[in-house]
């Protein structure tokens, strides 16, 4: 009983880690306050769900759940190329709203507010992941691979240019780097991993509907990124684990599920506010929020 509960939490922790690492790359390493993150997460979840329901194999669904949002990430970067700072945050937030409206209204594709039920559990090369423990192992492997890839990106020369773009875009341009391409790639990679996290949600819950992809859903991830500290992957992982587990006691106090949801969001929002006031660099942060 308890171990089943623990397994389900660990699956959500894995998902939160991938999501937060993805956002960390954009916000912390590149300085793009991407509020379109939830949209990528949404596109990934729907891509995986629709392909899985159409009977495509798991590896293809997972891959496409990353690639499709990636394309959207690139397009969004193209659209927001000239926009900076506050405006970039607004424009990307707008993207979240548009994607949410499409998920809600394009009923032929997404089944609208009723959502998509009955998403099959993953099956990889004959291995079955339908019980939670094997699913957890799969998720942990995916999380580890995602971490290693993002780590590799951030320590590569490409990652250094991203950081340079964040710190001083003009100077980076003077050195002959195409900063637009850099930012577009960062946003696309953010979208890729956000999409992967979305597909995990779809496979785990086996049901998705648009209500999981509102702007509210962005607050836990944003909270993790800020608390972990900008530019720190280790901090992000630690913060993701802590923050995912932190509101769990709410379940045992005996609140109804209609209270737990908003209460979780309130806790995250409050933690975020306190951190911004008293420790704006987060706990392991390497750079300041500008």
């Amino acid at each position, binding site marked *: 009983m308890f171990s089943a509960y623990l397994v389900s939490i660990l699956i959500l922790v894995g998902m939160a880690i991938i999501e937060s690492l993805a956002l960390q790359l954009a916000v912390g390493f590149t300085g793009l*306050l991407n*509020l379109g993150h939830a949209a990528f997460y949404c596109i990934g979840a729907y891509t995986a769900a629709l392909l899985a329901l159409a009977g495509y194999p798991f590896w293809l669904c997972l891959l496409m759940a990353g690639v499709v949002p990636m394309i959207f990430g690139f397009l969004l970067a193209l*659209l*927001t190329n*000239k*926009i900076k*700072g*506050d*405006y970039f*945050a*607004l*424009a990307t*937030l*707008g*993207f979240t*709203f*548009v994607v949410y*409206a*499409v998920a*809600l*209204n394009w009923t032929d594709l997404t089944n609208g507010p009723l959502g998509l039920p009955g998403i099959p559990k993953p099956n990889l090369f004959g291995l079955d992941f339908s019980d939670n423990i094997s699913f957890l192992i799969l998720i942990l492997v995916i999380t580890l691979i995602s971490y290693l890839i993002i780590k590799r990106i951030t320590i590569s020369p490409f990652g250094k240019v991203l950081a340079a773009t964040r710190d001083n875009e003009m100077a980076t341009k003077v050195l002959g780097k195409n900063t637009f391409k850099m930012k577009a790639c960062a946003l696309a990679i953010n979208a890729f991993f956000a999409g992967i996290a979305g597909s995990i949600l779809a496979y785990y819950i086996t049901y998705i509907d648009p209500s999981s992809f*509102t*702007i*509210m859903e962005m*607050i836990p991830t*944003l*909270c993790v990124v*800020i608390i972990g500290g900008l530019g720190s992957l280790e901090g992000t992982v630690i913060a993701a684990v802590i923050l995912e587990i932190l509101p769990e006691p709410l379940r045992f106090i005996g609140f109804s599920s*209609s*209270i737990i*949801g*908003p*209460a979780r*969001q*309130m806790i*995250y*929002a*409050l933690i*975020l*506010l306190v951190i*911004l*006031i008293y420790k*704006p660099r987060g706990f392991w942060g390497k750079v*300041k*929020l*500008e």
Partner: protein
Amino acid sequence: MIIVQLLINGLIAGAIYALVASGFSLIYSTCKFIHFAHGSTIAFSAYFLYFLFSMLGLNFWMAVILTIIFASLFGYLTNLVVYKELRKKKASNTILLIASFALLIFFESLILIIFGADVKTIGYIKVAEGLQFLGAVITPLQIIIIAVSLVLLISLFLFTKKTKIGKAMRAVADNKDVAEIVGISAEKIYSWAFIIGSAIAGIAGILTGMEQNINPTMGTNLMIKGFAAAIIGGIGSVPGAIVGAFLLGLAENFGIWYLPSGYKDAIAFVVLFIFLLFRPQGILGKKNN
């Protein structure tokens, strides 16, 4: 006459957006950061009116006045408790923006917990017979909405041009350091921007609450429309925000002539994107570097 009806619907929507956008724009131009929690002020005001009038049974006009005071106080306190603390620590605009986003989510969740997710109606004005106007229907309440909105917008315009505080506000908006040198306290002006902007938001919340039902996400939706309108019109310019608001209201209502009505919210952002791409300074905004 469907075109006249769409035009009227567009103007009504525009009137509400104009109130949201002008308050938002006032705060943005003076304080220079995006106050997402403006949406919470709207939603909280509508719920506060619901609480006073529909639950406690207070006299309607009394409840309205208390609600407007509540909205001002709410804006004033968010500025004092959160933003002022952040400014003291020399927080950047991005930090203020994230903080205001957190505030928005915090209050939206709080409303969900207190009042529940279901839709509520204030129901002061019973559904009245619409008046015929050039083949279109308009209810008395909708006429009131347009009238109130116009009166408020004109007063706001006169306030920023003629009064001492209004002029000081424009001075701070223009150049904070110079304004402080000539003896204007920027912090005081920030408080005033929040008080006035939030009062207008409160009125927008009341009007929307009476015209439609109220629900926890109403504030977020209106705030999105409001700042889309503010950017379209030229951010930082209150008249621009008003022009943008009416343009947006019309675009939405003519848009859903072709599209399913659920896409209404998306239309605002498509228009916003077009402006960000081709005219980021907005219709009336000045081009800056």
